[in-house]
């Protein structure tokens, strides 16, 4: 029953999406109002059908209906309920269904929010969204169908991949990643619609910016959660290894970030329109490339849990989307009117340009390093990979440069600036730069790149904080009280600006924390020959308390307990473990971390002997790791502040030609 219902819903979603896409494009061409109305209805219908299909699958998982092929593949009666729900995206077929569900949600949301406005662009945008939706419904209906009927249903299933069960972060990370990845379809639709119409007026910039910002927030958090998961689970003491799957999540984020900045230049100066559209299209194409890389099995990585034969299908879609994007650009880019030009090298817009250039260079660096082994393998069947030093040596200077521009850019005024203005803007922040370097040196930072990062970070911090509260200070100078100046200048009128600078401040912290935590990490290996033994690691005393074995319903664990002490004072008890799952013969290690604001003390079990009670551990002591997670969350919150629409003072009829927030300073 359930499998048939599921298959019916998927076919209905395929039909609805394909028909809606057609109606959208035709309505865009004929400018028919009825056509647009119908395109909207089909968009809503598609969303309703695909979301229902996903919920049917969740129901089948929860009721352990093993006649559904996907449930027979990943379900189990032995696992906790949260793992059962998480299994919706733990394997390929389910994850594509989950993708469809999120795409449906995004399409419905975007259609609803933009209803009655942007009627020039909306039909084509809906057409593009539903065309993408048809592709994913086709995947679900054909090569990745989770709703096959199992003729003789088993009584119990194997459960999802053990690595997914091993940590609760695996329940949170994938949804964020999908909310980011899938969401980039929406700005892609708007950008293509603008190209099809050959116009990118002010009124389409707002939906493009907002629909880019929302998935960007999710993607930002998702990348952090992925790193955090790797840190908490994989046991090598780090959070980023330039693994192909990690890179796949980073690539679209880089181009999306560049686009969020270039949009500001379009708003202020009316230039870089084609460039911004190119970046948005590139973001979507990189999402497809990332999906291909992670879902096709061309890379085997700890993060890629699902592989199958859908690779070629995704590759075909990627090729179609690429040809479509390039052709649209080639035929239409000249019709986008240029309204201004860059006035001088020491101007805000020039810095935006350099910012974009750096983001594109980082994108190419990561893209080449990730794809190069694939190309080599395709040509001469030799297997290789590009090692971490390549990525580090390329991205560290570019990242430092980015931090430098993050400081210099907002200090400079738009348009032409006099030499005196430039000096007055650029010289004072050097004070903070020197303070940061001195502080870092006093705390033990010695690496040249670390010190340079601290200098640029200090510079950027002073500029960012100064700019952040500029509207409030101006109001207070005019006699307003601090409270009203804050509410009016920061939260009501200048909210987008305020949010943007919160993001910038958080980025300064993230980059400094990454530089410090990776360059000042210390590793020690300890071998305990007996219970009660105490050994030293990086100035800490580690005492081995013993080993405990614990049987849980879905796994068997060996847990070693240690006391971490400094100067005779106990700081924490850490219990790294090895988990044995039924579906895997080899155990999965689970490190344990004692985190403080200053540094993390990280213990990973490499070897235990339960008979003789001996244990070997790797200890990693790294400063500022916690700041990476917290500052990335601050980035997301800052972006959220910038995204919340400013309450408009102008009536909406007047608002459309010129955006209400007519003073966007940064993206």
């Amino acid at each position, binding site marked *: 029953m359930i499998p048939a219902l599921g298959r019916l819903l998927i076919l209905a979603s395929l039909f609805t999406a394909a028909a809606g896409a057609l109606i959208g494009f035709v309505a865009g061409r004929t400018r028919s109002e009825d056509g647009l109305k119908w395109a909207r209805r089909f968009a809503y219908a598609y969303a309703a059908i695909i979301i229902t299909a996903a919920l049917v699958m969740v129901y089948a998982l929860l009721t352990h209906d093993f006649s559904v092929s996907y449930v027979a593949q990943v379900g189990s009666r032995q696992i906790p309920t949260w793992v059962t729900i998480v299994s919706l995206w733990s394997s390929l077929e389910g994850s594509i269904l989950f993708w469809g569900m999120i795409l449906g949600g995004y399409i419905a949301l975007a259609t609803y929010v933009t209803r009655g406005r942007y009627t020039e662009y909306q039909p084509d945008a809906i057409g593009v969204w539903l065309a993408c939706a048809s592709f994913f419904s086709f995947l679900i209906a054909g090569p990745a169908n989770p709703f096959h009927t199992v003729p003789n249903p088993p009584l119990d299933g194997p459960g999802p991949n053990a690595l997914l069960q091993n940590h609760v972060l695996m329940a949170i990370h994938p949804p964020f990643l999908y909310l980011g990845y899938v969401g980039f379809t929406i700005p892609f639709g708007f950008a293509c619609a603008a190209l099809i119409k050959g116009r990118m007026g002010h009124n389409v910039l707002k939906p493009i910016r907002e629909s880019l910002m929302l998935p960007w927030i999710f993607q930002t958090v998702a990348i952090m959660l992925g790193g955090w998961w790797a840190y908490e689970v994989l046991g090598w003491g780090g959070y980023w290894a330039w693994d192909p799957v990690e890179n796949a999540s980073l690539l679209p984020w880089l181009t999306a970030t560049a686009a969020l900045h270039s949009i500001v230049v379009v708003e202020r100066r009316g230039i870089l329109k084609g460039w911004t559209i190119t970046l948005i299209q590139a973001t979507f194409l990189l999402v497809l490339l990332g999906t291909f890389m992670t879902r096709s099995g061309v890379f085997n990585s700890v993060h890629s849990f699902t592989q199958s034969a859908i690779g070629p299908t995704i590759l075909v879609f990627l090729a179609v989307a690429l040809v479509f994007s390039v052709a649209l650009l080639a035929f239409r880019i000249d019709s986008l009117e240029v309204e201004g030009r860059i006035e001088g090298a020491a101007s805000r817009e020039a810095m935006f340009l350099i910012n974009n250039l750096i983001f594109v260079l980082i994108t190419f660096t990561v893209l*080449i390093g990730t794809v190069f082994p694939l190309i080599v393998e395709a040509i001469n069947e030799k297997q290789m990979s590009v090692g971490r030093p390549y990525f580090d040596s390329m991205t560290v200077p570019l990242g430092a440069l980015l931090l430098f521009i993050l400081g210099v850019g907002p200090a400079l005024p738009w348009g032409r600036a006099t030499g005196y203005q430039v000096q007055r803007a650029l010289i004072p922040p050097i004070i903070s730069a020197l303070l940061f370097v001195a502080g870092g040196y006093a705390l033990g930072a010695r690496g040249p790149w670390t010190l340079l990062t601290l200098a640029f970070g200090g510079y950027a911090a002073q500029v960012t904080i100064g700019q952040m509260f500029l509207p409030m200070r101006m109001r207070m100078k005019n006699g307003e009280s601090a409270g009203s100046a804050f509410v009016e200048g920061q939260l009501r009128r200048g909210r987008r600006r305020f949010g943007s600078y919160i993001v910038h401040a958080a980025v300064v912290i993230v980059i400094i924390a990454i530089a410090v935590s990776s360059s000042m990490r210390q590793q020690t290996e300890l071998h305990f020959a007996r219970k009660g033994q105490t050994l030293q690691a990086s100035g800490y005393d580690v005492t081995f308390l013993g080993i405990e074995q614990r049987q849980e319903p879905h796994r068997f664990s060996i847990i070693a307990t240690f006391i971490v002490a400094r100067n005779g004072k106990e700081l924490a008890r850490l219990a790294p473990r090895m988990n044995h799952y039924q579906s895997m013969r080899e155990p999965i290690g689970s490190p344990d971390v004692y985190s403080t604001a200053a540094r993390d003390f990280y213990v990973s079990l490499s070897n235990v002997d339960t008979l003789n009670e001996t244990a070997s551990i790797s200890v990693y002591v790294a400063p500022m790791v916690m700041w990476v997670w917290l500052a990335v969350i601050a980035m997301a919150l800052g972006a959220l502040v910038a995204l919340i629409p400013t309450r408009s003072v102008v009536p909406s009829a007047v608002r459309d030609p010129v955006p209400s927030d007519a003073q966007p300073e940064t993206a």
Partner: protein
Amino acid sequence: MSETDLARRRTRRFMVGAFVVAAVAFGVIAASGINQNLVYYWTPSDLHANGRKAYGATIRLGGMVAKGSIQKLGGSAVEFDVHDGKSRVHVKTSTVPPQMFRENIGVVVEGTMVPGGYFQSSRLMVSHNNEYKAPEKGHPVDRKELERMMKSVSEDNS
């Protein structure tokens, strides 16, 4: 042609020129960066076939731990042979072997050949998914499976 037009064209030519120079420079830097940091996925047979090239290059060597070859030295140092049914390579490593390390298990060691004719490894990884079975007598080693294993053992999983 007005003066501003001329100036604008000159600016544009300058911009295009600068862009090309930057792109070429970036390409050269990236290419040499990749070239210096390649990690080769080799079996013991590949390693022998490559001769001198194996000395100094970063290699991820995949194969089976030969039966009876494991010698535990003091501390965490371990020596053993890795084979693929045809050739074998002597490996010395200084890292703590993972829990499941034993004879006849698929391993991947990362390191390089050093003078003295053995493989010095800084990283020892054991295959998580036991897809690679020991080659039985008379059956050739399944190269595809071995390559899969070398890829699947993650960079960061030690």
